[in-house]
């Protein structure tokens, strides 16, 4: 914590601390007291790319003999050529817009998972997203998210380990375990007295009382960690897509780096539904992937030494058709690709039971065939990285999925 902050920042912090100390809000634990870390410092970030990221744009299988013919004008130039894809191994590469992440692969901090999918086979955004988030085998099979249920198994009284970046909590983090949220705001802080009156007014309201308490907790921590930066980062009217993602990534890193900060964060970025003119080395997907690379680089920088004990999983709800559609884009498909990054990850490798891109190898004759489910990856994150008891994972977090074993060997320790 630096000590030479402008006076107005310090006074705003003082105001908030006072707010937290008023009668109505005194049930909230104070920020700043050192406590044993319930997850021994391990951190997890889930990045959900909504809209259906084209897995073969993220990570082209340039070495597959059928790649060029299957992808036609959407094929990326192979590694080594001008603007070529970034080589991972003899078969797979990364989209050139991910140049910020490519060195991580060489450093053993990035793994590619390919031909991966949720259990959803219907190509619906909304069902597929729900399934990725609720953790059951059925769409709308649970009203809360698996990550929230997993956090419920961690003994951390008074701590809010989960962090949602944005105005609303994604289903992944919704549920009985309280989480914190953070979003940039340009409003001046409301005064203590008003907050106290409002907390009093909301007492007994099952929806509003916990929501206000959670928000104040998040705000207090953000002030503690980010000082004057915490406000006004959005400018009037908030941030646009990619800039907002970068800001949120940096904020997540700063909040999670704090000794008493959250440990599990969810970041979201939409805009991946590339039905038309998705581009190759330039264009819609390239711009978005560049934003992902920037955001994750900011996250790593903000985490500082905590990066060593961090895992970041980048996922989407489904992949897209292998062949281009009639309009320079790709329609909804099945399997796609995911990235696993972080200092805790045993990276530098591609994890895929590659089904191939030949016409006979495709799922229903059109999509990349799924050979790896997301839930074994999620389970490995919880069991092998966060060290959550397997019994809790199997009974509460991912019910009805005992036959799906956690994917082995993803992490260093």
């Amino acid at each position: 914590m630096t000590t030479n902050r402008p006076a107005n920042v310090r006074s705003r912090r003082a105001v908030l601390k006072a707010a937290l100390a008023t009668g109505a809000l005194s049930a909230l634990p104070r920020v700043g007291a050192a406590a044993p870390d319930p997850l021994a410092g391990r951190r997890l970030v889930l990045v959900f790319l909504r809209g259906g990221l084209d897995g073969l744009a993220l990570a082209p299988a340039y070495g597959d003999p059928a790649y060029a013919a299957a992808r036609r004008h959407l094929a990326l130039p192979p590694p080594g050529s001008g603007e070529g894809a970034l080589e991972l191994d003899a078969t797979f590469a990364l989209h050139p817009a991910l140049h910020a992440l490519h060195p991580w692969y060489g450093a053993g901090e990035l793994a590619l998972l390919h031909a991966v999918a949720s259990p959803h086979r219907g190509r619906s955004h909304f069902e597929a997203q729900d399934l990725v988030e609720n953790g059951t085998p059925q769409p709308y099979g649970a009203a809360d998210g698996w990550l929230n249920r997993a956090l419920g198994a961690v003994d951390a009284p008074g701590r809010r380990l989960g962090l949602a970046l944005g105005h609303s909590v994604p289903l992944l983090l919704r549920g009985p375990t309280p989480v914190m949220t953070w979003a940039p705001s340009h409003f001046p802080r409301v005064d203590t007295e008003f907050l106290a009156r409002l907390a009093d007014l909301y007492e007994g309201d099952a929806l509003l009382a916990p929501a206000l308490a959670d928000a104040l907790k998040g705000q207090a921590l953000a002030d503690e960690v980010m000082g004057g930066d915490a406000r006004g980062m959005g400018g009037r009217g908030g941030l646009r897509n990619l800039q907002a993602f970068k800001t949120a990534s940096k904020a997540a890193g700063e909040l999670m780096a704090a000794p008493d900060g959250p440990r599990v964060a969810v970041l979201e970025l939409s805009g991946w539904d590339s039905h038309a003119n998705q581009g190759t080395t330039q264009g819609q997907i390239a711009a978005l992937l560049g934003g992902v690379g920037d955001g994750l680089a900011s996250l790593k920088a903000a985490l500082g030494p905590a990066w060593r004990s961090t895992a970041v999983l980048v996922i989407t709800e489904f992949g897209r058709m292998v062949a281009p559609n009639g309009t320079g884009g790709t329609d909804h498909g099945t399997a796609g690709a995911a990235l696993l990054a972080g200092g805790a990850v045993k990276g530098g490798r591609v994890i895929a039971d590659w089904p191939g891109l030949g016409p006979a190898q495709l799922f229903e004759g059109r999509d990349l065939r799924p050979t790896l489910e997301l839930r074994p990856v999620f389970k490995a994150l919880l069991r092998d990285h966060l060290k959550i008891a397997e019994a809790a994972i199997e009974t509460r977090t991912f019910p009805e999925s005992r036959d799906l074993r956690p994917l082995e060997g993803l992490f260093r320790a």
Partner: protein
Amino acid sequence: MAIETKAFVAVNRFGLGARPGELKRAASDPHGWLEAQLEGRSAQPDAFAALESGPATTRSFFAADDRNAKEVIKLFSERFRDIFMQEVAARTRVMATSAQPYRERLVAFWSNHFTVSAKRPVVAGLAGAFEREAIRPHVTGRFADMLLAVARHPAMLLFLDNVLSIGPNSMAGQRTGKGLNENHAREILELHTLGVKGGYDQRDVVELAKLITGWSLSRREPGATPGTYKFHGFAHEPGTKTLLGVRYDQGGEAEGEAALRALARHPSTAIFIATKFARHFIADDPPAPAVERLARVFRDTDGDLRALAAAVVDEPAAWQAPLAKFKTPQDFLVSVLRATDIFPAEPRAVVGSFEELGQVPFTALSPAGWDDNAAAWAGPEAVLRRAEWSLAFARRAAPARQPIALMEATIAPVASARTREAIAQAPSAQQGLALLLASPEFLRR
């Protein structure tokens, strides 16, 4: 239930929040007050007089596109941005001042059901026109007519790419090698009619995509006004198609229209629409018997939306829990403007308020539209944001608006002792007004 409480439900659950005197007016006959609003057709309000039509805006897009990409970017960042702000301001003004708020809520409901989003830049210039031209005229008409008007509007044709979709065996497909784009067909099935569990599969998506190939916009062909809907026979996939087991072989535009009319009459559509309607007007998790009754009305009347709107008013469950629904940010802002009779002079300020509250009209992140439940809108940041916004608004609005009088005119029938006391004992008119706006009763409908 006291008649005052019924008036509160009529004015908030079905209406858009009380304007001065409205609670009293509705209290003489809450049901009748709502039913009267369903009479007649939707007039185009004066606030819309100066706005540009969808085809005219589409023409300006085509003209820029014919020149170069730079012109398109300039058009999007300047002209379309202005149009967007004016449309949002005009729509909000109509909602904030309408004496037929139930009808306006129906416009917003159907507009959200058939979402087009300005997240796609070309739609920013067209979303307002879409709502005025394809939604508003049909909110008490037939569902099938709305479905067809939506599917042929430039905003939807551009938003879901149907202008790009070409039958691979059509003349255009053969000549250019271009083909289908499934986007529009899939969302018609999943989001506009049957719903995702409605009993269709991937083959149906492709067949419907073929059926509506050629549903496009005129650009420069002789005899047609550029920017208007135009069926392009040369892009229409020839041959027989089979959708949900029904064969279509009449060819041309008629087969797509027949398919959409069949989808509108499908029992899954009735259930899907009834469920969304009940969620909007009864509860986040609506009771099954009410959904079934509404579905039956939809089916029995062949999708008569006036009958559906009257039927939900007749549902006892819609009246039993006056605060069952949490207002979306749009609901909230509109109800604040109605209650205080304040309206920002600048369109930019209207859009700015929506941004601050986290929901700008016509900018849903996906074609599924905005969520219609408390879980989506009552998150921690959102709740704190409403409180912050309320205080900032109250600083500008008080003391011209007295909190206690305003409380009496808006939430009095349901206001708890705690809320009354908090407002009465607030240290300033500003805080009193902010506490009213951020009160549990004012945040709900």
